[in-house]
Protein backbone atom coordinates (compact mmCIF):
# COMPACT_ATOMS: atom_id res chain seq x y z
CA UNK A 1 0.00 0.00 0.00
CA UNK A 2 1.71 3.14 -1.20
CA UNK A 3 1.62 6.15 1.10
CA UNK A 4 0.70 8.45 -1.79
CA UNK A 5 -2.56 6.63 -2.47
CA UNK A 6 -5.62 8.07 -0.86
CA UNK A 7 -6.83 6.05 2.13
CA UNK A 8 -10.46 5.55 1.13
CA UNK A 9 -9.99 4.28 -2.42
CA UNK A 10 -7.22 1.94 -1.30
CA UNK A 11 -9.53 0.40 1.25
CA UNK A 12 -12.25 0.18 -1.38
CA UNK A 13 -9.79 -1.43 -3.79
CA UNK A 14 -8.83 -4.02 -1.21
CA UNK A 15 -12.45 -4.67 -0.44
CA UNK A 16 -13.29 -5.17 -4.10
CA UNK A 17 -10.40 -7.55 -4.61
CA UNK A 18 -11.39 -9.52 -1.53
CA UNK A 19 -14.94 -9.74 -2.82
CA UNK A 20 -13.79 -10.84 -6.25
CA UNK A 21 -11.36 -13.47 -5.11
CA UNK A 22 -13.57 -14.99 -2.46
CA UNK A 23 -16.31 -16.08 -4.81
CA UNK A 24 -14.84 -16.91 -8.17
CA UNK A 25 -17.58 -18.74 -10.00
CA UNK A 26 -16.34 -20.87 -12.86
CA UNK A 27 -18.25 -21.49 -16.05
CA UNK A 28 -18.95 -25.03 -17.19
CA UNK A 29 -16.46 -25.06 -20.03
CA UNK A 30 -15.65 -28.74 -19.98
CA UNK A 31 -14.27 -29.85 -23.30
CA UNK A 32 -12.52 -33.18 -22.88
CA UNK A 33 -10.73 -35.35 -20.32
CA UNK A 34 -9.75 -32.42 -18.15
CA UNK A 35 -13.43 -31.73 -17.69
CA UNK A 36 -13.76 -34.95 -15.74
CA UNK A 37 -11.02 -33.84 -13.38
CA UNK A 38 -12.75 -30.48 -13.18
CA UNK A 39 -15.92 -32.28 -12.18
CA UNK A 40 -13.90 -34.10 -9.55
CA UNK A 41 -13.07 -30.86 -7.81
CA UNK A 42 -16.76 -30.43 -7.14
CA UNK A 43 -16.92 -33.91 -5.67
CA UNK A 44 -16.70 -34.33 -1.89
CA UNK A 45 -13.04 -35.27 -1.74
CA UNK A 46 -11.68 -32.09 -3.26
CA UNK A 47 -14.64 -29.82 -2.72
CA UNK A 48 -13.84 -26.54 -4.39
CA UNK A 49 -16.81 -24.79 -2.85
CA UNK A 50 -14.83 -24.29 0.32
CA UNK A 51 -12.67 -21.92 -1.73
CA UNK A 52 -15.60 -19.87 -2.84
CA UNK A 53 -16.42 -21.55 -6.13
CA UNK A 54 -19.69 -22.70 -4.79
CA UNK A 55 -21.41 -23.19 -8.12
CA UNK A 56 -20.42 -23.70 -11.68
CA UNK A 57 -22.63 -21.44 -13.75
CA UNK A 58 -23.57 -22.61 -17.21
CA UNK A 59 -24.32 -19.15 -18.45
CA UNK A 60 -21.28 -17.02 -19.25
CA UNK A 61 -23.22 -13.96 -18.15
CA UNK A 62 -23.15 -15.18 -14.58
CA UNK A 63 -19.63 -16.49 -14.26
CA UNK A 64 -16.24 -14.98 -13.51
CA UNK A 65 -13.85 -17.69 -14.49
CA UNK A 66 -13.51 -19.74 -17.61
CA UNK A 67 -11.55 -22.92 -16.95
CA UNK A 68 -10.68 -24.13 -20.43
CA UNK A 69 -10.47 -27.80 -19.62
CA UNK A 70 -9.51 -29.86 -22.58
CA UNK A 71 -8.24 -29.69 -26.10
CA UNK A 72 -9.59 -26.88 -28.26
CA UNK A 73 -10.55 -27.96 -31.76
CA UNK A 74 -10.76 -25.57 -34.68
CA UNK A 75 -14.52 -25.79 -34.74
CA UNK A 76 -14.80 -24.92 -31.07
CA UNK A 77 -12.44 -21.95 -31.09
CA UNK A 78 -14.91 -19.29 -32.30
CA UNK A 79 -17.40 -20.49 -29.74
CA UNK A 80 -14.85 -20.23 -26.98
CA UNK A 81 -14.09 -16.69 -28.04
CA UNK A 82 -17.75 -15.80 -28.16
CA UNK A 83 -18.32 -17.18 -24.69
CA UNK A 84 -15.35 -15.23 -23.39
CA UNK A 85 -16.72 -12.05 -24.89
CA UNK A 86 -20.06 -12.75 -23.27
CA UNK A 87 -18.59 -12.96 -19.80
CA UNK A 88 -18.86 -9.67 -17.92
CA UNK A 89 -15.76 -8.01 -16.46
CA UNK A 90 -13.83 -8.80 -14.31
CA UNK A 91 -13.12 -12.20 -15.78
CA UNK A 92 -10.26 -14.62 -15.65
CA UNK A 93 -9.15 -17.64 -17.65
CA UNK A 94 -7.41 -20.74 -16.37
CA UNK A 95 -5.95 -22.89 -19.10
CA UNK A 96 -6.24 -26.33 -17.60
CA UNK A 97 -4.11 -29.14 -18.87
CA UNK A 98 -1.42 -29.57 -21.44
CA UNK A 99 -3.78 -29.44 -24.42
CA UNK A 100 -5.30 -26.12 -23.50
CA UNK A 101 -1.94 -24.64 -22.62
CA UNK A 102 0.11 -25.76 -25.57
CA UNK A 103 -1.71 -28.31 -27.67
CA UNK A 104 -0.54 -31.12 -25.41
CA UNK A 105 0.00 -34.56 -26.87
CA UNK A 106 -1.53 -33.47 -30.15
CA UNK A 107 0.48 -31.66 -32.80
CA UNK A 108 -1.80 -31.75 -35.80
CA UNK A 109 -4.24 -29.94 -38.04
CA UNK A 110 -7.14 -30.22 -35.66
CA UNK A 111 -6.07 -28.82 -32.32
CA UNK A 112 -5.19 -25.26 -31.40
CA UNK A 113 -1.64 -24.99 -30.13
CA UNK A 114 -2.79 -23.50 -26.88
CA UNK A 115 -5.92 -21.61 -26.03
CA UNK A 116 -3.88 -18.46 -25.57
CA UNK A 117 -4.04 -18.12 -29.35
CA UNK A 118 -7.54 -16.83 -28.85
CA UNK A 119 -7.93 -15.86 -25.20
CA UNK A 120 -5.77 -14.06 -22.65
CA UNK A 121 -4.88 -16.66 -20.03
CA UNK A 122 -4.16 -15.95 -16.39
CA UNK A 123 -3.01 -19.29 -15.04
CA UNK A 124 -1.67 -22.30 -16.90
CA UNK A 125 -2.00 -25.71 -15.28
CA UNK A 126 0.27 -28.44 -16.64
CA UNK A 127 -0.75 -32.07 -16.55
CA UNK A 128 -2.54 -34.56 -18.68
CA UNK A 129 -4.93 -34.32 -17.00
CA UNK A 130 -3.83 -32.26 -14.01
CA UNK A 131 -4.97 -33.83 -10.80
CA UNK A 132 -7.74 -31.97 -9.00
CA UNK A 133 -5.15 -30.85 -6.45
CA UNK A 134 -3.29 -29.07 -9.22
CA UNK A 135 -6.43 -27.31 -10.34
CA UNK A 136 -7.24 -26.19 -6.84
CA UNK A 137 -3.71 -24.92 -6.48
CA UNK A 138 -4.22 -22.99 -9.70
CA UNK A 139 -7.36 -21.49 -8.25
CA UNK A 140 -5.44 -20.42 -5.17
CA UNK A 141 -2.79 -18.87 -7.38
CA UNK A 142 -5.50 -17.02 -9.22
CA UNK A 143 -6.84 -15.71 -5.96
CA UNK A 144 -3.42 -14.51 -4.94
CA UNK A 145 -3.11 -12.86 -8.29
CA UNK A 146 -6.44 -11.12 -7.93
CA UNK A 147 -5.32 -9.88 -4.56
CA UNK A 148 -2.10 -8.60 -5.98
CA UNK A 149 -4.05 -6.89 -8.69
CA UNK A 150 -1.84 -8.08 -11.53
CA UNK A 151 -2.78 -9.96 -14.71
CA UNK A 152 0.64 -11.58 -15.22
CA UNK A 153 0.76 -15.10 -16.60
CA UNK A 154 1.39 -17.55 -13.80
CA UNK A 155 2.44 -21.16 -14.15
CA UNK A 156 0.80 -23.25 -11.43
CA UNK A 157 2.95 -26.24 -10.63
CA UNK A 158 1.64 -28.73 -8.11
Amino acid sequence: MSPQQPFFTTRLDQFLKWAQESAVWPMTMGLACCAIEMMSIVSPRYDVSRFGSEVFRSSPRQSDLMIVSGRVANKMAPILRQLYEQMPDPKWVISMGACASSGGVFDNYAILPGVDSILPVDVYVPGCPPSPDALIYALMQLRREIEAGGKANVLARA
Partner: protein
Amino acid sequence: MTIEDTEIGRTDSTAKEVRKRDDLRIFALAPDPEAATVDERDTLVLSMGPQHPSTHGVLRVMLRLDGETVLTAEPEIGYLHTGIEKQCENLFWQQAITVVERADYLAPLLNGLCYVLAAERLLGIKDVPPRAQVLRVMFAELTRIASHLVWLGTHAMDLGAQSIFMYAFEMRERILDIMEFVTGARMHQSWFRIGGLAIDVPKGFLAKMDDFIARFPTRLADMRRILEKNVIIMDRLVGVGAISASDAIAWGLTGPNLRASGIAYDVRKAYPYSGYEQYDFDVCVASGGDCYARFVVRLNEMQQAWRIIKQACERFPDGPVAIADRKIIPPPKTEIQHSMEALIHHFKLVSSGFNVPEGHVYQSVESPRGELGMYVTSAGGNKPWRVRWRPPSFYNLQALRKLAPRNLVADVVAIIGSLDPVFGEVDR
Protein backbone atom coordinates in the same frame (compact mmCIF):
# COMPACT_ATOMS: atom_id res chain seq x y z
CA MET B 1 -7.76 -8.24 -28.85
CA THR B 2 -11.18 -8.27 -30.48
CA ILE B 3 -12.77 -10.94 -32.62
CA GLU B 4 -12.03 -9.06 -35.82
CA ASP B 5 -8.31 -9.02 -35.09
CA THR B 6 -8.12 -12.75 -35.32
CA GLU B 7 -8.92 -15.24 -37.98
CA ILE B 8 -12.01 -16.25 -36.10
CA GLY B 9 -14.04 -13.28 -37.24
CA ARG B 10 -13.47 -13.98 -40.89
CA THR B 11 -13.83 -17.71 -40.86
CA ASP B 12 -16.79 -17.63 -38.55
CA SER B 13 -18.84 -15.59 -41.00
CA THR B 14 -18.10 -18.02 -43.80
CA ALA B 15 -19.09 -20.86 -41.56
CA LYS B 16 -22.30 -19.01 -40.75
CA GLU B 17 -23.18 -18.75 -44.41
CA VAL B 18 -22.44 -22.36 -44.99
CA ARG B 19 -24.51 -23.28 -41.99
CA LYS B 20 -27.49 -21.18 -43.06
CA ARG B 21 -27.49 -22.91 -46.41
CA ASP B 22 -27.23 -26.31 -44.79
CA ASP B 23 -29.86 -25.61 -42.15
CA LEU B 24 -32.56 -25.49 -44.75
CA ARG B 25 -31.45 -28.85 -46.02
CA ILE B 26 -31.24 -30.43 -42.59
CA PHE B 27 -34.78 -29.74 -41.69
CA ALA B 28 -36.12 -30.97 -44.94
CA LEU B 29 -34.71 -34.38 -44.13
CA ALA B 30 -36.67 -35.21 -41.02
CA PRO B 31 -36.52 -38.95 -40.28
CA ASP B 32 -39.89 -38.56 -38.66
CA PRO B 33 -42.53 -38.15 -41.38
CA GLU B 34 -44.98 -36.51 -38.97
CA ALA B 35 -42.63 -33.62 -38.49
CA ALA B 36 -43.08 -32.52 -42.07
CA THR B 37 -46.77 -31.87 -41.57
CA VAL B 38 -46.35 -28.98 -39.15
CA ASP B 39 -46.08 -25.59 -40.78
CA GLU B 40 -42.49 -24.42 -40.64
CA ARG B 41 -43.48 -20.94 -39.57
CA ASP B 42 -45.02 -22.30 -36.39
CA THR B 43 -41.85 -24.00 -35.28
CA LEU B 44 -38.88 -22.76 -33.29
CA VAL B 45 -35.31 -23.71 -34.05
CA LEU B 46 -33.32 -24.03 -30.86
CA SER B 47 -29.59 -24.53 -30.83
CA MET B 48 -28.69 -26.55 -27.77
CA GLY B 49 -24.99 -26.43 -27.02
CA PRO B 50 -22.10 -26.80 -27.69
CA GLN B 51 -21.57 -25.25 -24.30
CA HIS B 52 -24.34 -26.67 -22.20
CA PRO B 53 -24.42 -28.29 -18.78
CA SER B 54 -26.42 -31.27 -19.89
CA THR B 55 -25.04 -32.29 -23.22
CA HIS B 56 -22.27 -34.31 -21.56
CA GLY B 57 -19.63 -32.61 -23.58
CA VAL B 58 -19.37 -30.49 -26.68
CA LEU B 59 -22.49 -31.34 -28.61
CA ARG B 60 -24.74 -29.03 -30.51
CA VAL B 61 -28.24 -30.30 -31.11
CA MET B 62 -30.33 -28.27 -33.51
CA LEU B 63 -33.86 -28.83 -32.30
CA ARG B 64 -36.90 -27.91 -34.28
CA LEU B 65 -39.70 -27.48 -31.79
CA ASP B 66 -43.43 -27.24 -32.05
CA GLY B 67 -44.09 -25.70 -28.66
CA GLU B 68 -42.35 -28.05 -26.29
CA THR B 69 -42.43 -31.05 -28.58
CA VAL B 70 -39.38 -31.91 -30.59
CA LEU B 71 -40.03 -32.38 -34.29
CA THR B 72 -36.48 -33.00 -35.46
CA ALA B 73 -33.24 -33.19 -33.55
CA GLU B 74 -30.08 -32.88 -35.58
CA PRO B 75 -26.90 -33.33 -33.56
CA GLU B 76 -23.89 -31.46 -34.78
CA ILE B 77 -20.55 -32.85 -33.76
CA GLY B 78 -16.91 -32.17 -34.45
CA TYR B 79 -16.31 -29.66 -31.68
CA LEU B 80 -13.72 -31.92 -30.15
CA HIS B 81 -12.16 -33.35 -33.29
CA THR B 82 -8.59 -34.09 -32.35
CA GLY B 83 -7.15 -35.93 -35.31
CA ILE B 84 -6.24 -38.93 -33.16
CA GLU B 85 -6.45 -41.30 -36.10
CA LYS B 86 -3.98 -39.23 -38.08
CA GLN B 87 -1.77 -38.72 -35.06
CA CYS B 88 -1.51 -42.50 -34.61
CA GLU B 89 -0.18 -42.84 -38.15
CA ASN B 90 2.79 -40.71 -37.15
CA LEU B 91 3.74 -42.46 -33.93
CA PHE B 92 5.40 -45.80 -33.31
CA TRP B 93 3.15 -48.70 -32.46
CA GLN B 94 3.90 -48.49 -28.76
CA GLN B 95 3.75 -44.68 -28.71
CA ALA B 96 0.27 -44.63 -30.18
CA ILE B 97 -1.09 -46.26 -27.00
CA THR B 98 -0.89 -42.94 -25.16
CA VAL B 99 -2.76 -41.05 -27.85
CA VAL B 100 -5.35 -43.75 -28.35
CA GLU B 101 -6.40 -43.57 -24.71
CA ARG B 102 -7.54 -40.00 -25.00
CA ALA B 103 -10.46 -40.79 -27.26
CA ASP B 104 -12.94 -42.28 -24.84
CA TYR B 105 -11.65 -40.41 -21.83
CA LEU B 106 -14.01 -42.00 -19.34
CA ALA B 107 -12.64 -45.48 -20.03
CA PRO B 108 -9.07 -44.86 -21.18
CA LEU B 109 -7.71 -48.31 -20.47
CA LEU B 110 -10.32 -49.89 -22.72
CA ASN B 111 -9.20 -47.87 -25.73
CA GLY B 112 -5.69 -48.96 -24.95
CA LEU B 113 -6.82 -52.57 -24.58
CA CYS B 114 -8.56 -52.62 -27.96
CA TYR B 115 -5.55 -51.17 -29.72
CA VAL B 116 -3.10 -53.43 -27.95
CA LEU B 117 -5.15 -56.54 -28.71
CA ALA B 118 -5.36 -55.55 -32.38
CA ALA B 119 -1.61 -55.05 -32.57
CA GLU B 120 -1.03 -58.37 -30.82
CA ARG B 121 -3.21 -60.11 -33.36
CA LEU B 122 -1.29 -58.56 -36.23
CA LEU B 123 1.98 -59.61 -34.63
CA GLY B 124 0.65 -63.09 -33.92
CA ILE B 125 1.28 -62.86 -30.18
CA LYS B 126 -0.84 -65.49 -28.48
CA ASP B 127 1.05 -66.08 -25.27
CA VAL B 128 0.38 -62.99 -23.19
CA PRO B 129 1.09 -64.22 -19.64
CA PRO B 130 -1.93 -65.15 -17.46
CA ARG B 131 -1.07 -62.58 -14.82
CA ALA B 132 -1.24 -59.87 -17.45
CA GLN B 133 -4.54 -61.21 -18.75
CA VAL B 134 -6.09 -61.23 -15.30
CA LEU B 135 -4.87 -57.73 -14.55
CA ARG B 136 -6.18 -56.53 -17.89
CA VAL B 137 -9.60 -57.94 -17.11
CA MET B 138 -9.56 -56.54 -13.61
CA PHE B 139 -8.65 -53.06 -14.69
CA ALA B 140 -10.99 -53.12 -17.66
CA GLU B 141 -13.83 -53.85 -15.25
CA LEU B 142 -12.66 -51.21 -12.80
CA THR B 143 -12.65 -48.76 -15.67
CA ARG B 144 -16.14 -49.86 -16.60
CA ILE B 145 -17.38 -49.21 -13.10
CA ALA B 146 -15.65 -45.83 -13.01
CA SER B 147 -17.22 -44.86 -16.32
CA HIS B 148 -20.67 -45.97 -15.26
CA LEU B 149 -20.30 -44.00 -12.05
CA VAL B 150 -19.63 -40.84 -14.03
CA TRP B 151 -22.63 -41.67 -16.18
CA LEU B 152 -24.78 -42.22 -13.11
CA GLY B 153 -23.62 -39.06 -11.42
CA THR B 154 -24.14 -36.82 -14.41
CA HIS B 155 -27.35 -38.43 -15.63
CA ALA B 156 -28.94 -38.27 -12.21
CA MET B 157 -27.76 -34.69 -11.85
CA ASP B 158 -29.41 -33.82 -15.16
CA LEU B 159 -32.63 -35.26 -13.83
CA GLY B 160 -32.29 -33.29 -10.63
CA ALA B 161 -30.76 -35.76 -8.17
CA GLN B 162 -27.67 -33.74 -7.37
CA SER B 163 -26.57 -35.71 -4.34
CA ILE B 164 -26.08 -38.85 -6.42
CA PHE B 165 -23.32 -36.98 -8.23
CA MET B 166 -21.47 -36.70 -4.95
CA TYR B 167 -21.92 -40.36 -4.01
CA ALA B 168 -20.93 -41.60 -7.43
CA PHE B 169 -17.84 -39.44 -7.64
CA GLU B 170 -16.78 -40.38 -4.14
CA MET B 171 -16.88 -44.04 -5.16
CA ARG B 172 -15.03 -43.20 -8.33
CA GLU B 173 -12.28 -41.54 -6.32
CA ARG B 174 -11.61 -44.87 -4.62
CA ILE B 175 -11.19 -46.52 -8.00
CA LEU B 176 -8.90 -43.74 -9.16
CA ASP B 177 -6.89 -44.21 -5.98
CA ILE B 178 -6.28 -47.81 -6.98
CA MET B 179 -5.32 -46.72 -10.49
CA GLU B 180 -2.90 -44.17 -9.12
CA PHE B 181 -1.44 -46.71 -6.71
CA VAL B 182 -0.68 -49.15 -9.50
CA THR B 183 0.03 -47.05 -12.56
CA GLY B 184 0.86 -43.62 -11.24
CA ALA B 185 -1.98 -41.82 -13.01
CA ARG B 186 -5.65 -41.28 -12.22
CA MET B 187 -6.79 -41.03 -15.83
CA HIS B 188 -4.94 -41.95 -19.02
CA GLN B 189 -2.85 -44.58 -17.33
CA SER B 190 -1.19 -45.93 -20.53
CA TRP B 191 -0.47 -49.10 -18.66
CA PHE B 192 -1.26 -51.75 -21.26
CA ARG B 193 1.50 -52.59 -23.68
CA ILE B 194 1.65 -54.72 -26.80
CA GLY B 195 2.60 -58.02 -25.23
CA GLY B 196 1.42 -57.40 -21.68
CA LEU B 197 1.65 -54.61 -19.21
CA ALA B 198 4.20 -51.87 -18.61
CA ILE B 199 4.90 -52.67 -14.95
CA ASP B 200 3.70 -55.11 -12.36
CA VAL B 201 1.41 -54.15 -9.48
CA PRO B 202 3.08 -53.06 -6.24
CA LYS B 203 2.87 -54.85 -2.89
CA GLY B 204 -0.36 -54.18 -1.06
CA PHE B 205 -2.38 -54.19 -4.24
CA LEU B 206 -4.56 -57.13 -3.30
CA ALA B 207 -5.32 -55.56 0.07
CA LYS B 208 -6.53 -52.42 -1.66
CA MET B 209 -8.63 -54.45 -4.06
CA ASP B 210 -10.17 -56.43 -1.24
CA ASP B 211 -11.07 -53.20 0.47
CA PHE B 212 -12.77 -51.95 -2.69
CA ILE B 213 -14.57 -55.25 -3.22
CA ALA B 214 -15.91 -55.06 0.31
CA ARG B 215 -17.10 -51.47 0.09
CA PHE B 216 -18.55 -51.21 -3.37
CA PRO B 217 -21.68 -53.39 -3.15
CA THR B 218 -23.12 -51.50 -0.20
CA ARG B 219 -22.58 -48.14 -1.86
CA LEU B 220 -24.08 -49.38 -5.12
CA ALA B 221 -27.03 -50.79 -3.20
CA ASP B 222 -27.47 -47.41 -1.50
CA MET B 223 -27.61 -45.60 -4.79
CA ARG B 224 -29.94 -48.16 -6.30
CA ARG B 225 -32.27 -47.88 -3.37
CA ILE B 226 -32.50 -44.15 -3.87
CA LEU B 227 -32.92 -44.25 -7.61
CA GLU B 228 -34.26 -47.44 -9.03
CA LYS B 229 -37.87 -47.23 -7.89
CA ASN B 230 -37.84 -43.51 -7.41
CA VAL B 231 -41.04 -41.86 -8.58
CA ILE B 232 -39.28 -38.93 -10.21
CA ILE B 233 -36.73 -41.05 -12.02
CA MET B 234 -39.45 -43.33 -13.30
CA ASP B 235 -41.62 -40.43 -14.38
CA ARG B 236 -38.77 -38.88 -16.29
CA LEU B 237 -37.39 -42.03 -17.86
CA VAL B 238 -40.10 -44.63 -18.39
CA GLY B 239 -41.43 -44.53 -21.93
CA VAL B 240 -39.04 -41.79 -22.98
CA GLY B 241 -36.83 -42.37 -25.99
CA ALA B 242 -38.07 -45.88 -26.64
CA ILE B 243 -36.54 -47.83 -29.49
CA SER B 244 -37.45 -51.29 -30.67
CA ALA B 245 -34.90 -54.03 -31.09
CA SER B 246 -34.95 -54.03 -34.89
CA ASP B 247 -34.61 -50.25 -34.99
CA ALA B 248 -31.76 -50.39 -32.52
CA ILE B 249 -29.97 -52.87 -34.74
CA ALA B 250 -30.63 -50.81 -37.86
CA TRP B 251 -29.26 -47.68 -36.23
CA GLY B 252 -26.10 -49.45 -35.10
CA LEU B 253 -26.66 -49.20 -31.37
CA THR B 254 -24.49 -51.44 -29.24
CA GLY B 255 -23.74 -51.95 -25.60
CA PRO B 256 -26.24 -51.07 -22.89
CA ASN B 257 -28.38 -49.23 -25.44
CA LEU B 258 -28.88 -52.39 -27.46
CA ARG B 259 -29.19 -54.66 -24.45
CA ALA B 260 -31.95 -52.42 -23.08
CA SER B 261 -33.98 -53.27 -26.18
CA GLY B 262 -33.69 -56.95 -25.43
CA ILE B 263 -30.76 -58.10 -27.53
CA ALA B 264 -28.19 -59.79 -25.32
CA TYR B 265 -25.11 -58.89 -27.33
CA ASP B 266 -22.00 -58.42 -25.25
CA VAL B 267 -18.63 -58.62 -26.98
CA ARG B 268 -17.13 -60.18 -23.86
CA LYS B 269 -19.40 -63.18 -24.34
CA ALA B 270 -19.63 -63.24 -28.12
CA TYR B 271 -15.99 -62.76 -29.07
CA PRO B 272 -14.12 -63.08 -25.79
CA TYR B 273 -10.68 -61.58 -25.36
CA SER B 274 -8.14 -61.55 -22.56
CA GLY B 275 -9.60 -64.67 -21.01
CA TYR B 276 -13.16 -63.41 -20.44
CA GLU B 277 -14.52 -66.86 -21.26
CA GLN B 278 -13.15 -68.06 -17.92
CA TYR B 279 -15.24 -65.67 -15.85
CA ASP B 280 -18.76 -66.20 -14.70
CA PHE B 281 -20.98 -63.18 -15.29
CA ASP B 282 -24.39 -62.38 -16.75
CA VAL B 283 -25.24 -60.26 -19.72
CA CYS B 284 -27.57 -57.55 -18.43
CA VAL B 285 -30.66 -57.25 -20.57
CA ALA B 286 -33.91 -55.38 -20.22
CA SER B 287 -36.92 -55.13 -22.46
CA GLY B 288 -38.65 -51.88 -23.22
CA GLY B 289 -35.84 -50.04 -24.94
CA ASP B 290 -36.59 -46.77 -23.17
CA CYS B 291 -34.38 -44.60 -21.00
CA TYR B 292 -35.39 -46.45 -17.88
CA ALA B 293 -34.36 -49.78 -19.34
CA ARG B 294 -30.94 -48.35 -20.23
CA PHE B 295 -30.71 -46.96 -16.72
CA VAL B 296 -31.38 -50.33 -15.13
CA VAL B 297 -29.04 -52.16 -17.49
CA ARG B 298 -26.13 -49.94 -16.56
CA LEU B 299 -26.82 -50.30 -12.86
CA ASN B 300 -26.83 -54.06 -13.29
CA GLU B 301 -23.65 -53.91 -15.31
CA MET B 302 -21.83 -52.30 -12.43
CA GLN B 303 -22.87 -55.23 -10.30
CA GLN B 304 -21.64 -57.73 -12.87
CA ALA B 305 -18.37 -55.89 -13.28
CA TRP B 306 -17.86 -56.12 -9.54
CA ARG B 307 -18.46 -59.86 -9.79
CA ILE B 308 -15.78 -60.19 -12.44
CA ILE B 309 -13.31 -58.18 -10.38
CA LYS B 310 -13.95 -60.43 -7.40
CA GLN B 311 -13.27 -63.53 -9.47
CA ALA B 312 -10.16 -61.98 -10.96
CA CYS B 313 -8.80 -61.22 -7.50
CA GLU B 314 -9.37 -64.78 -6.41
CA ARG B 315 -7.72 -66.07 -9.52
CA PHE B 316 -4.69 -63.80 -9.39
CA PRO B 317 -1.76 -65.89 -10.68
CA ASP B 318 1.94 -65.20 -10.29
CA GLY B 319 4.36 -64.78 -13.11
CA PRO B 320 5.62 -62.17 -15.52
CA VAL B 321 3.39 -59.40 -16.78
CA ALA B 322 4.73 -59.23 -20.32
CA ILE B 323 5.99 -61.56 -22.99
CA ALA B 324 9.69 -62.27 -23.05
CA ASP B 325 10.25 -61.12 -26.62
CA ARG B 326 12.81 -58.34 -26.31
CA LYS B 327 12.01 -57.07 -29.74
CA ILE B 328 8.56 -55.98 -28.58
CA ILE B 329 8.78 -55.40 -24.86
CA PRO B 330 11.82 -53.60 -23.47
CA PRO B 331 13.99 -55.53 -20.99
CA PRO B 332 13.84 -54.56 -17.31
CA LYS B 333 15.89 -51.53 -16.38
CA THR B 334 18.12 -53.47 -14.00
CA GLU B 335 19.26 -55.66 -16.86
CA ILE B 336 19.98 -52.72 -19.12
CA GLN B 337 22.57 -51.53 -16.66
CA HIS B 338 24.88 -54.50 -17.16
CA SER B 339 23.92 -56.25 -20.42
CA MET B 340 24.95 -54.83 -23.79
CA GLU B 341 22.31 -56.78 -25.60
CA ALA B 342 19.57 -55.49 -23.35
CA LEU B 343 20.81 -51.97 -23.89
CA ILE B 344 20.67 -52.40 -27.65
CA HIS B 345 17.17 -53.84 -27.50
CA HIS B 346 16.01 -50.89 -25.42
CA PHE B 347 17.70 -48.41 -27.73
CA LYS B 348 16.17 -49.97 -30.80
CA LEU B 349 12.69 -49.99 -29.29
CA VAL B 350 12.82 -46.40 -28.16
CA SER B 351 14.44 -44.94 -31.25
CA SER B 352 12.72 -46.87 -34.01
CA GLY B 353 10.09 -49.14 -32.52
CA PHE B 354 9.33 -52.54 -33.98
CA ASN B 355 7.83 -53.64 -37.28
CA VAL B 356 4.43 -55.25 -37.44
CA PRO B 357 3.71 -57.61 -40.35
CA GLU B 358 1.45 -56.40 -43.11
CA GLY B 359 -2.24 -57.07 -42.71
CA HIS B 360 -5.44 -55.76 -41.28
CA VAL B 361 -7.57 -56.85 -38.38
CA TYR B 362 -10.81 -55.77 -36.74
CA GLN B 363 -10.64 -56.06 -32.97
CA SER B 364 -13.54 -55.19 -30.72
CA VAL B 365 -13.93 -54.86 -26.98
CA GLU B 366 -16.94 -54.14 -24.85
CA SER B 367 -16.60 -50.55 -23.73
CA PRO B 368 -19.10 -49.05 -21.29
CA ARG B 369 -20.73 -47.44 -24.31
CA GLY B 370 -20.92 -50.39 -26.60
CA GLU B 371 -18.78 -52.20 -29.10
CA LEU B 372 -15.53 -50.33 -29.38
CA GLY B 373 -13.82 -51.61 -32.46
CA MET B 374 -10.58 -50.80 -34.19
CA TYR B 375 -9.84 -51.76 -37.75
CA VAL B 376 -6.07 -51.55 -37.76
CA THR B 377 -4.12 -51.75 -40.99
CA SER B 378 -0.41 -52.33 -41.01
CA ALA B 379 1.85 -51.76 -44.01
CA GLY B 380 4.72 -53.67 -42.46
CA GLY B 381 6.35 -50.62 -40.89
CA ASN B 382 7.03 -49.39 -37.38
CA LYS B 383 4.03 -47.08 -37.37
CA PRO B 384 0.39 -48.05 -37.80
CA TRP B 385 -0.73 -47.35 -41.35
CA ARG B 386 -4.32 -46.70 -40.35
CA VAL B 387 -6.20 -47.01 -37.08
CA ARG B 388 -9.87 -46.77 -37.88
CA TRP B 389 -12.02 -46.40 -34.76
CA ARG B 390 -15.45 -47.87 -34.60
CA PRO B 391 -16.65 -45.48 -31.89
CA PRO B 392 -19.76 -46.74 -30.11
CA SER B 393 -20.82 -43.24 -29.09
CA PHE B 394 -20.78 -42.04 -32.71
CA TYR B 395 -23.45 -44.53 -33.65
CA ASN B 396 -25.31 -44.21 -30.36
CA LEU B 397 -25.53 -40.46 -30.82
CA GLN B 398 -26.77 -40.79 -34.36
CA ALA B 399 -29.76 -42.60 -32.94
CA LEU B 400 -30.72 -39.35 -31.23
CA ARG B 401 -32.21 -38.32 -34.55
CA LYS B 402 -34.54 -41.26 -34.18
CA LEU B 403 -35.15 -41.12 -30.44
CA ALA B 404 -35.70 -37.46 -29.75
CA PRO B 405 -38.63 -36.58 -32.05
CA ARG B 406 -42.07 -36.67 -30.45
CA ASN B 407 -40.58 -36.17 -27.02
CA LEU B 408 -40.46 -32.97 -25.02
CA VAL B 409 -37.45 -30.70 -24.85
CA ALA B 410 -36.69 -31.79 -21.30
CA ASP B 411 -36.68 -35.39 -22.46
CA VAL B 412 -33.88 -34.65 -24.89
CA VAL B 413 -31.60 -34.18 -21.91
CA ALA B 414 -32.72 -37.48 -20.45
CA ILE B 415 -32.20 -39.26 -23.77
CA ILE B 416 -28.71 -37.88 -24.32
CA GLY B 417 -27.82 -38.93 -20.80
CA SER B 418 -29.20 -42.40 -21.30
CA LEU B 419 -27.23 -42.88 -24.52
CA ASP B 420 -24.08 -41.95 -22.58
CA PRO B 421 -21.99 -40.39 -25.34
CA VAL B 422 -18.40 -39.39 -24.83
CA PHE B 423 -17.31 -36.74 -27.29
CA GLY B 424 -13.68 -37.60 -27.30
CA GLU B 425 -14.82 -40.79 -28.96
CA VAL B 426 -17.51 -39.30 -31.18
CA ASP B 427 -15.17 -36.70 -32.61
CA ARG B 428 -11.76 -38.31 -32.18
